[in-house]
């Protein structure tokens, strides 16, 4: 077994663009669930809408920031459309409706009848040109750079530039959440999470606050969608329910209602995932094929989620007293 290669891969996964994207999506979910107590099980829908809005407008020739605005706008619209029927209902209704809505956008965006716009079920790949506007902004010279153990291209696809940009976005996300949690606005959200009626009795518009949280967290998901798809391709099926469940596992692993929980959760989950997968593959066991080792790693993710929720719902960084997971 080649431990150097495995450990290099595993450590590389810790700062991969996809890890940053998952951290961003989990930061968004943290605004929903950790700060406000909304059971959003459709975060992948926000990610998907962000990714497609960005890619489609980028292919149409929009500049980078305009495409980012398009992604944000799609999340705002989706959040409002989703919030209107559900935010007045009880928590488990919200979870079912959000998961259904995320599934609707996935089914629609992979439909072959929209092939001209979304690429149908084969999605949009780099060949369609959605990465150009981002790569044009790259401040580094062309070529590849090796930093210690890791060699990546400077500007194209899964590049150093993408890593820098994605982690910068994660840092901004953490900074915002840190600010929000200490602001009067954040304290009202916390109040909504703990006791909606008490906040209502204080004359606050609970519905409005929930809507703001839903939209803001969704924007986090949409930005995650951009960084999730830039290294690879836009594929509706890679942004389905499994992604939502992964984001939940990440958030609960790191600790909901904390600033760095989502980041820690994402780094931890994907490095361990990579480790298990690579070790199983390298062991070359006769009874486990490489597809099976993948399935086995996913089983571990599911098991982690179960055990976490039962035995340590506050996650690694969370405070059990602060977060009662059982929102109404």
């Amino acid at each position, binding site marked *: 077994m080649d431990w150097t290669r495995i450990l290099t891969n595993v450590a590389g996964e810790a700062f991969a663009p996809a890890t940053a994207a998952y951290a961003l999506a989990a930061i968004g979910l943290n605004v929903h669930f950790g700060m406000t107590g909304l059971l959003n099980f459709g975060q992948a829908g926000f990610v998907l809408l962000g990714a497609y809005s960005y890619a489609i407008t980028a292919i149409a020739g929009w500049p980078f920031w305009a495409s980012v605005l398009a992604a944000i706008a799609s999340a705002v619209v989706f959040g409002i459309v989703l919030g209107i*029927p559900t935010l007045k*209902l009880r928590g*488990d*209704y919200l*979870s*079912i409706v959000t*998961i*259904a*809505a995320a*599934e*609707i956008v996935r*089914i*629609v965006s*992979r*439909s*072959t*009848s929209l*092939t*001209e716009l979304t*690429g*149908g*079920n*084969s999605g949009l*790949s*780099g060949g*369609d040109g959605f990465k150009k506007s981002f790569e044009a902004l790259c401040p580094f010279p062309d070529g590849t750079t090796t930093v210690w153990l890791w060699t990546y*291209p400077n500007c*194209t*696809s*899964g590049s150093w530039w993408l890593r820098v940009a994605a982690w910068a976005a994660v840092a901004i996300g953490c900074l915002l959440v840190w600010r929000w949690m200490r602001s009067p606005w954040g304290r009202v959200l916390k109040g909504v999470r703990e006791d909606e009626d008490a906040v209502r009795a204080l004359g606050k518009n609970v519905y409005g606050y929930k809507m703001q949280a839903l939209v803001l967290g969704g924007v986090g998901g949409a930005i995650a969608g951009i960084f999730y798809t830039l*290294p*690879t*391709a836009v*594929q509706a099926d890679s942004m389905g*329910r*499994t992604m939502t*469940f992964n984001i*939940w596992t990440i958030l*609960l692993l790191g600790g909901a209602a904390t600033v760095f929980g989502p980041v820690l959760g994402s780094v931890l989950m994907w490095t361990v995932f990579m480790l298990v997968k690579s070790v199983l593959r390298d062991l070359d066991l006769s009874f486990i*094929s*490489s*597809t099976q080792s*993948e*399935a*086995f*790693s*996913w*089983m571990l*993710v*599911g098991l982690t*989620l*179960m*055990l976490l*929720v*039962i035995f340590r*719902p506050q996650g690694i960084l969370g405070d059990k007293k602060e977060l009662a*997971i*059982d*929102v*109404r």
Partner: protein
Amino acid sequence: MLALVALLALVVHAGPASAATAAPCTPDATTGCVLGTIKTAAGEPAVGVVLTVEGGGESVEVTTGADGTWSVPVTTAGDYTVSIDPATLPEGETLRDPSVTSRTVKVLLNSQSRALFALGEPTGGATTSPTSGASAAPDDGPGPTSGSSTSGGGVTGKRVAQQLANGLVFGLLLALASVGLSLIYGTTGLSSFAHGEQVTLGAILAYFFVQTVGLDLWLAAVLATLLGAASGWLQDAGIWRPLRRKRIGLTQQMIVTIGLSMVLQYLFQFLLGGGRLRIDTTNPTRVSIGPVSLTQQAIVSAGIAVVVLAAVAAFLLYSRTGRATRAVSDNPALAAASGIGVERVIRIVWTGAAGLAALGGVLTGLYFQSTAWNMGGTVLLLMFAAVTLGGLGTAWGALAGSIVIGVVAEMSSLVIPSDMKYAGALLILILVLLVRPQGILGRRDRIG
């Protein structure tokens, strides 16, 4: 009948016009391509065939275009399983080797890997000759993925009747699973996201008993149902009762069901692979009733569903345990105070619900003509839609909701592309919540 065939031929020919623009996959440093071309026995391109490419933790479905080609970009190198859905082959076509519906290809980045499926007269002689399927047009295989990309050549009375019948059958099968989901919600307050996997469990157990053990289909269905029920008993005894005793909150329990659903789903994939599994490999016999043509299996399945649902209704209305179940549903504390063994009722509900789900899985697997490790995931949301639509926690509501969802899903393919039909059904769920949040038969106080 002729008109129907002509219409379907039109659908098949009109479809690819939009699909033809699908950008073929081009390999680059981060992308590898899995691709292939499917040609009919006569050498014409086979249009609208659905394939599933599975691997790297993902599953992607593609449909062949006007030139019979398909391609899928992948971003991780490794082994991928490509499976073909035989139900979507063009009329009269069969696989040359009907037993091989999936192949494994090794995919490298920056390169192309081909997966080939040859069509023609079966060489093994294992299946019936293709002519017997002459009336089975490709559009009739109502799998979760029926591939045609158009909404069809207009709405005719005949198509309306056909889709209505399909929808009713599908709704009845869906009801088997969702009644249990609703009863679990009613008695424990838990929305079980792992209920979809109970459905898959039934289907793959039936597959195992029929294809691996070689049992008769009827016996296999009974065994699968019983084992499914046993799994429900085990689940309650092993997970949910301890959690209730530990006073773990309902939201936490719900997230546990999500984790459980992931574990089970990937366990199925681990054990059986990502391909499509056909419980019954014979070509279905079709029966025409007036303007409607259904497979014999669909009619028998619907009959079984009606009988079983009636039995469940009778159980809930007239038996002692059934009345106790409804009492627990209404008010667990009051029920416990009046001497009902709440835990015993919950155990019975879990066992029965899992058994019903397994039976629903067997019948749905037969109705879709194939099953797969993630079938439950597809059905789960429709079940939730049905249960929420009917009113969370009411058994009758789940039945009514299922039939509405089944009919809406099938009828919606008259006006929207058929690969979007489940989106239509889920949209109904959201619209209903806007107007009547408690569902069709639900009570106001349940919505909080």
